[in-house]
């Protein structure tokens, strides 16, 4: 059948905002079982920030043990005798700590922050829609993620404790309780991630449909703000990668419960098959964790530099290239695994190639700042830090991409340094940039710029003190996931470095209190935010802060791209996307930052 009439199948009846109409939905409908994408975005934000704190607390415990091995933690009695008798962390609990730190941070903090929060906040507003294509599915996505998180948390409190097989869950360690000492906890780990996978898939379906189908007139693909391009590509990655993880987790869960032998060698199972399945998901996953961050950085850098993004088209192509190539590099996690070395050689080649689109993006960000008119507002500081830190993370990746060098650095702290430079130095700084940038729009209040700058400065300094020395630890041969490196003579000289890192980590954790305070305090006491505090161009800035339910009173029309800053012959240095052509002077200037 050819064209289908628009009414068929209830294309999302867009409930445009109605001025003067009282919103009489109940509290439950509005804030708990909300279908408004803005509220769901905030829900994901609170959930994810909570889990970010959980992940951070776990990291503090890890660093305590590495900084002062065998020393009781102040207040450690709360952990209980099974995990830390006398406040001294046990090796088995340590293994749980490293596992759950990674698990919570990746699945319950960074991923929902980037995909759940910014996807929900930005997609409908940036494309010019009243809401997502499937608002109730959106609600279901959040309310599926929450139980998944609770299940994961509960695994700490069962006998045998939480999973201790690494966030990568390699079998047979993860498949056989006798090997790991963890019984129910490992099963809960699998179940939790399976449930979370459903939440992610619901989100992906919603995002893709909304971006493809619900763009306002004039919002062509090449006029989309880069966060939307990134989220679109990311949603496709989620759609195709998460089901593979789900499959792998099911096979593992069956090995643990109903007697299958997928990964158990005595009965023909293949441990390497777990790794192939896991990393086939796992590598696209890390691009899921960075691409939306890159989109946010592009948005903020262009705004802060008052200059169009350098090479918009190439940014789009690079994003697509990264996503595409990301499917054929998974074996670089398995170079030393016993996989056929010839296969390793092909993965080395594809892995080296994927460095190129990332390099293009970095140069384009530099090009955006070049000859700009840079305003160092708090989001901009965080975005610039992203560029500086992502470069380090990306360059360190070249070392491990080289298979012979990887022989030495695989499973050492060099890898840990790399991971954290891209995930913290990269993704988390971008998340901070995004929160500082869009907080005024969605909460209707301004955060304190002074506290923002202090938070940024302290975080930047301590973060580098924590993670940069890890490169050196790795180059000296310190392995990952090691409860007490002093068992090895060749690692004993490294103790002072570990202690230095741990001190910095505690200070880094403390510095986050400033952010928490700023965030919470500004909700009630911050100055009321105007519609466009950053003098930005995308559609959300034409609406009140916060936008009403239904967003736009009439469907907007888009006339230009989102990065038309400092265009000639204009009184102001910005040019909103929906401003009709022929309006020479543009909007009022509403500078707000210090």
């Amino acid at each position: 059948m050819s064209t289908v009439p628009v009414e068929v199948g209830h294309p999302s009846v867009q409930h445009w905002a109605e001025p003067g109409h009282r919103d009489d939905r109940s509290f439950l409908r509005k804030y708990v079982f909300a279908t408004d994408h803005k509220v769901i975005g905030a829900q994901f934000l609170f959930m994810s920030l909570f889990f970010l704190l959980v992940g951070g607390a776990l990291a503090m415990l890890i660093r305590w043990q590495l900084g002062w091995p065998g020393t009781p933690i102040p207040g450690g009695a709360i952990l209980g005798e099974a995990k830390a008798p006398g406040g001294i962390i046990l090796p088995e609990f340590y293994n749980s700590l490293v596992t759950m730190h990674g698990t919570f941070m990746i699945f319950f903090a960074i991923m929902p922050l980037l995909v759940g929060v910014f996807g929900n906040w930005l997609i409908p507003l940036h494309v010019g829609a009243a809401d997502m294509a499937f608002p109730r599915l959106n609600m279901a996505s959040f309310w599926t993620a929450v139980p998944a998180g609770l299940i994961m948390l509960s695994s700490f409190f069962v006998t045998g404790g939480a999973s201790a097989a690494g966030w990568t869950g390699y079998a047979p360690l993860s498949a056989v309780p006798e090997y790991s000492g963890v019984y129910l906890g490992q099963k809960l780990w699998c179940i939790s991630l399976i449930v979370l996978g459903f939440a992610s898939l619901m989100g992906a379906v919603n995002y893709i449909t909304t971006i493809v189908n619900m763009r306002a007139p004039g919002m062509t693909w090449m006029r989309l703000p880069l966060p939307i391009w990134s989220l679109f590509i990311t949603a496709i990655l989620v759609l195709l990668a998460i089901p593979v993880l789900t499959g792998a987790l099911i096979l593992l869960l069956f090995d643990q419960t109903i007697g299958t032998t997928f990964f158990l060698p005595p009965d023909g199972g293949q441990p390497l098959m777990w790794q192939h399945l896991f990393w086939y998901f796992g590598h696209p996953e890390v691009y899921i964790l960075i691409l939306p961050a890159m989109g946010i950085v592009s948005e903020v850098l262009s705004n802060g530099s008052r200059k169009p993004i350098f090479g918009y088209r190439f940014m789009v192509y690079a994003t697509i290239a990264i996503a595409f190539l990301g499917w054929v590099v998974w074996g670089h996690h398995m170079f030393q695994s016993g996989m056929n070395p010839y296969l390793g050689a092909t993965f080395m080649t594809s892995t080296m190639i994927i460095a190129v689109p990332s390099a293009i993006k970095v140069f384009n960000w530099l090009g955006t700042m070049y000859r700009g008119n840079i305003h160092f507002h708090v989001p901009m500081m965080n975005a610039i830090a992203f560029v500086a830190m992502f470069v380090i993370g990306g360059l360190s990746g070249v070392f491990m991409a080289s298979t012979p060098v990887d022989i030495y650095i695989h499973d050492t702290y060099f890898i840990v340094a790399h991971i954290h430079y891209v995930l913290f130095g990269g993704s988390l700084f971008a998340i901070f940039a995004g929160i500082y940038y869009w907080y005024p729009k969605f909460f209707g209040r301004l955060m304190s710029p002074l506290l923002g700058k202090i938070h940024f400065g302290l975080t930047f300094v301590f973060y580098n003190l924590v993670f940069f020395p890890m490169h050196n630890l790795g180059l000296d041969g310190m392995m990952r996931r090691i409860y007490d490196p002093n068992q090895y003579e060749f690692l004993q000289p490294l103790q002072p470095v570990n202690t230095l890192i741990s001190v910095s980590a505690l200070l880094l954790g403390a510095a986050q209190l400033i952010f928490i305070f700023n965030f919470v305090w500004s909700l009630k006491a911050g100055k009321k935010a105007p519609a466009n505090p950053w003098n930005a161009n995308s559609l959300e800035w034409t609406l009140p802060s916060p936008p009403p339910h239904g967003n736009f009173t009439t469907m907007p029309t888009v006339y230009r791209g989102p990065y038309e800053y400092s265009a000639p012959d204009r009184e102001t240095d910005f040019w909103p996307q929906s401003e009709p052509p022929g309006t020479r002077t543009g909007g009022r200037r509403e500078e707000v930052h210090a």
Partner: protein
Amino acid sequence: MNWNWLLPEPVSTFGSEIDSIYYLILVITGIIFVLVEVALVVFMVKYRHREGRRAEYSHGSTRLELVWTVVPFVLVMVIAWMSMRVWLEAKVADGHAPADALSIRVAAKQFEWNVTYPGPDERLDTADDFVKTNQLHLPVGRAVRIELTSDDVIHSFFLPEFRVKQDAVPGMTIGVWFEATTAGEYELACAELCGLGHYSMNASVTVHESEAFQSWVSEEGGQTPAVETPAPPDTSAADLEAASTTPPSGEDHSSHQPASDGKERA
């Protein structure tokens, strides 16, 4: 520890080749790092907002895009190409290891390394094989070929100074080879999370001068293996007799022939 980015002295033949690739990458990435970060700082200072300033209204430059696509591509391809040969030699050469390479079997398990030496006849699965736990003895200047197995979970055989690392996977026998260049005492580490004792799965590594290695082998080979390894129940003379008359089982590690220490191997 050293804050420079130098690697510890390598003690194997391909160790220095691996290190030269590392240093090549270090130089290339180091230069790029400096250039990019300096540019970033310069831009922040030079293009900061000042009264009356306006940004350049430019959308990019296709020519520059091509330059910074092609140059990184060439650089990484060079690195990949140079890495390829060293990789294939280190990992695949196992199939082409020198004919006179010494064969040793290493079985990883929670949480120790059981090393089976071929004894004076230098053939595995013969009567004069013996097993040491957590002690790896190697001759200097001679290729060694290790058959790596695991009894339970995935471990990883990591000799840092030798630039050797290979996961030990249950259900697989994986070949690892290297040639030590310097006598001395080193450590073997497990580099794959394998359970609660992962952190203490270290073993001593002794590289002997060749005559010293031969005499060590004859000394050890002559002794009853039960003395060295965790005592199995009665390794009687009858058991040793049985082991020496049973034909070698070849590569199949799932056979139920007791190894010369009387212990079953899965």
